[in-house]
C-alpha cells in the first residue's frame, strides 16, 4: 500500500524538454495510465519514477518520502519493460529469484515466492525453462512475476504488451487487471494505445508535449475531453470547424445550436462522437443531409462515412446494423450530443433536446 507524488517534474535533454512540469499523485491501489502519442514524455516520466533518468527539476515522493536522489536499485519500484527483458543466460526461476536473492532471503522463502509469482501469472511449472524457450506472452508474464515477487510499492509498466499480437494483448490486459486488483498495488502503466488505457485505468493522465493535458477517469475523458487534442486522441471523433455567422459546413445554422456565450467567437470547432448521430432515412427538413460514401461492417455495429454538402472531410457515423444504408444513398443526420470548443476556454457540451447551458 503506497502512494506516489510527482511535484513539478521536469526533464530536459539538451534543448529538448521531454517532461515539462508534471504534477501527479497516485493513490493506494490505483491503476493510472500515462497515455499519449510517441514523444509526449510519458516514458521519460516513468523512467524518472523508476530512477533511470534524473529529473532536471522537481521531486518524486513515495509514501511522502523524497526518492528523487535515490538510485534505481534502492527504489521501492519495480518495472516491466516494453521489450522482454528476461536475462537470457538465466532460467525462469533464476530470473524471478534474482532480486529476492539480492535481498538475502532464505532459500526456502525464495523458492516459495518464485512459485507463488509463477502461479499468479499462470506459469506454474515453468521454473527450469530458459527465456528463449518461451513465447513473447510467456516472457512478459515472467517479467511481470519478476517485478511482483519483490512486493514493490509502485508497479511500473512501460508499454509491456505493445510487441504482442492483438488477441494476446487483450488477454494479458485482463490478467494484469485481475492481478493488480488482487494485490491492490499502485500501478502506473504507460501506453500510446487509448483503447488499452480506457480499458485498464482508474484514471488516465493524457500527455502532450511533456505536459499532462487532462487527468480524469476514462469515462470523463471520453465524455468531456478538455481540448481538441484530447478530443481527437481519445476514441473516434468528428471535428468540424465552424463559425456562427459563416456556416462553412453549408449547414442550416439553426440546426447547429451554439451556446450563447460562444456565438461571438471567431473560431469554433464542433466535436461529435460517431455514435452520437441519429440517422434518418430519408432525410427530413431541418436535418443535416449527406451522401453515404462508404459503409463498413465492424461486427456489432456499422461504420459509415458520410459526405456532408460543403464539408471538406466526410464524417464518421457509427450506427446499429438493424438499419440498412447503401452507398450513394442520401441520409439525414441529427447530432444528439456534441461539444463546442473555442480557443482559450473550456469546451461546452450541447445536448439539443435539453435546455442550452448558459456559458
Amino acid at each position, binding site marked *: 500500500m503506497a502512494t506516489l507524488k510527482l511535484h513539478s517534474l521536469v526533464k530536459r535533454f539538451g534543448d529538448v524538454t521531454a517532461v515539462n512540469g508534471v504534477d501527479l499523485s497516485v493513490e493506494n491501489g490505483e491503476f493510472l495510465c500515462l497515455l499519449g502519442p510517441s514523444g509526449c514524455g510519458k516514458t521519460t516520466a516513468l523512467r524518472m519514477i523508476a530512477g533511470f533518468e534524473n529529473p532536471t527539476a522537481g521531486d518524486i515522493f513515495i509514501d511522502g518520502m523524497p526518492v528523487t536522489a535515490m538510485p534505481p536499485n534502492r527504489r521501492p519500484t519495480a518495472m516491466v519493460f516494453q521489450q522482454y527483458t528476461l536475462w537470457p543466460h538465466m532460467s525462469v526461476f533464476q530470473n524471478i529469484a534474482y532480486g529476492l536473492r*539480492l535481498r538475502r532471503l532464505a532459500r526456502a522463502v525464495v523458492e516459495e515466492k518464485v512459485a507463488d509469482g509463477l502461479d499468479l501469472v499462470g506459469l506454474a511449472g515453468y521454473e527450469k525453462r530458459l527465456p528463449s524457450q518461451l513465447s513473447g506472452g510467456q516472457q512478459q508474464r515472467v517479467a511481470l512475476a519478476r517485478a511482483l515477487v519483490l512486493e514493490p510499492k509502485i508497479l511500473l509498466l512501460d508499454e509491456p504488451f505493445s510487441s504482442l499480437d492483438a488477441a494476446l494483448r487483450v488477454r494479458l490486459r485482463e490478467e494484469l487487471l485481475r492481478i493488480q486488483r488482487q494485490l491492490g498495488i499502485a500501478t502506473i502503466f504507460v501506453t500510446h494505445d487509448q483503447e488499452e488505457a480506457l480499458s485498464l485505468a482508474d484514471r488516465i493522465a493524457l500527455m502532450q508535449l511533456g505536459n499532462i493535458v487532462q487527468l480524469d477517469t476514462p469515462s470523463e475523458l471520453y465524455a468531456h475531453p478538455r481540448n481538441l487534442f484530447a478530443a481527437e486522441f481519445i476514441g473516434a471523433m468528428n471535428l468540424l470547424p465552424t463559425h456562427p455567422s459563416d456556416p462553412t459546413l453549408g449547414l442550416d445554422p439553426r440546426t447547429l445550436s451554439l451556446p450563447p456565450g460562444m456565438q461571438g467567437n471567431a473560431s469554433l470547432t464542433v466535436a461529435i462522437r460517431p455514435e452520437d448521430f441519429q440517422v434518418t432515412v430519408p432525410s427530413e427538413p431541418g436535418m443535416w443531409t449527406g451522401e453515404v460514401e462508404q459503409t463498413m461492417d465492424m461486427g456489432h455495429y456499422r461504420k459509415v462515412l458520410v459526405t456532408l454538402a460543403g464539408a471538406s472531410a466526410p464524417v464518421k457515423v457509427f450506427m446499429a446494423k438493424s438499419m440498412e444504408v447503401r452507398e450513394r444513398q442520401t441520409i439525414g443526420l441529427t447530432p444528439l450530443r456534441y461539444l463546442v470548443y473555442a480557443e482559450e476556454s473550456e469546451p461546452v457540451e450541447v445536448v439539443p433536446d435539453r435546455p442550452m447551458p448558459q456559458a
Partner: protein
Amino acid sequence: MAGSATTVMRSMVGRSLRLVAGRPWFGICLLLLLALVVLGPMLNVFLWAFTRNWAYPSLLPTVWSIEFWDDTFARADILEGFIASVWISLIVTGLSAVICLPAAYAFARMQFPGRTFLLLSFLATNAFPRFGLYITIAVIFFRLRLIGTVPGVVLIQLVNTLLFMIWIPTAAFQGVDRALEEAALDVGASPLRVFLQVTLPLVAPALAAALLLTFIGTFYETQGALLVGVPEVRTLPVVMIRLINNQVIVQYGAILSVALWVPSLLLLIFAQRVLRGNTIASGFGV
C-alpha cells in the same frame, strides 16, 4: 533491343546453370579442385613429416619413417622456443585484455570526442604493410634497448592484437540490450553486480572468442618476433624459420609445422564446443 538482348542472355545463362546443376559430377570436380588447392600444400607438409626418403618422380615418399620426430623434439632450441611462445602469448593476451577490454567498454557505452576516429585508428595498424611498421618500431626499440628482450617482443606483438581485442568486445558490449541491465538495476542489483552478473555473462562468448583469436594469433606471430626478439628471444615460429633456412633437412620444418598445427586445432575445437555457433560472427556485429 537492349532489353531483349539481356533477356536472351539471361535465359542462356539460366539454361547453362540448369545444365550444370543437373550434373552432380561438375560439383564434385569443383570440390576436388578446391580441396587440391587448399589441402594440397598441407598434405605435402604432412607427408614430409613422416618421410625419410622422397625421390623426385614418386607421388608418395619412397621410404616412410617417424625417426625425425624424436630428433626434432630432442632439440633444446625447439623446447625453449615452445616455452617462450606459450609464455609470451599468455602475457600478450593478458596485457591486451587489460588494456583493450575497458577501452572496448568505453567505446561501446560512452560518448566522447574523437570516439569514431579512435575506433577507426585501430584499423590503421592493419592498413599499412606490417613489416614497414615493424622496422620503424624496431628503430625506436633499438634506442630504448628493447631489441632482443621479452618486453620488446611483447610490445610489438601487442600491436597486432589491438584490432581483435577492441573491435570484437566493442561490438559485443554494444549488442547488450541496455534494458537488460536496467531490469537488473531495477530489482536491486548494484551497478557493479549488474556488470558482473548480467553484462559480462552476455558478452562472455564474444570475449572468449577475442581472447582465443588473440592467443592463437600471437602464438603464430613471426615477423615482429623475428625482428625484435632475435637473437636472445626465440619463439617457436622463429625457431622454425631458422630450421628451415639453415638446415637441408626438410623434415624438421615439416614436423614443426604439423606439431604447431595441433594446438590451434585443439583450441578451435574447444572454441566450437564452448561457444555457440554464431558468436564469432556476432562479435563482428554481423
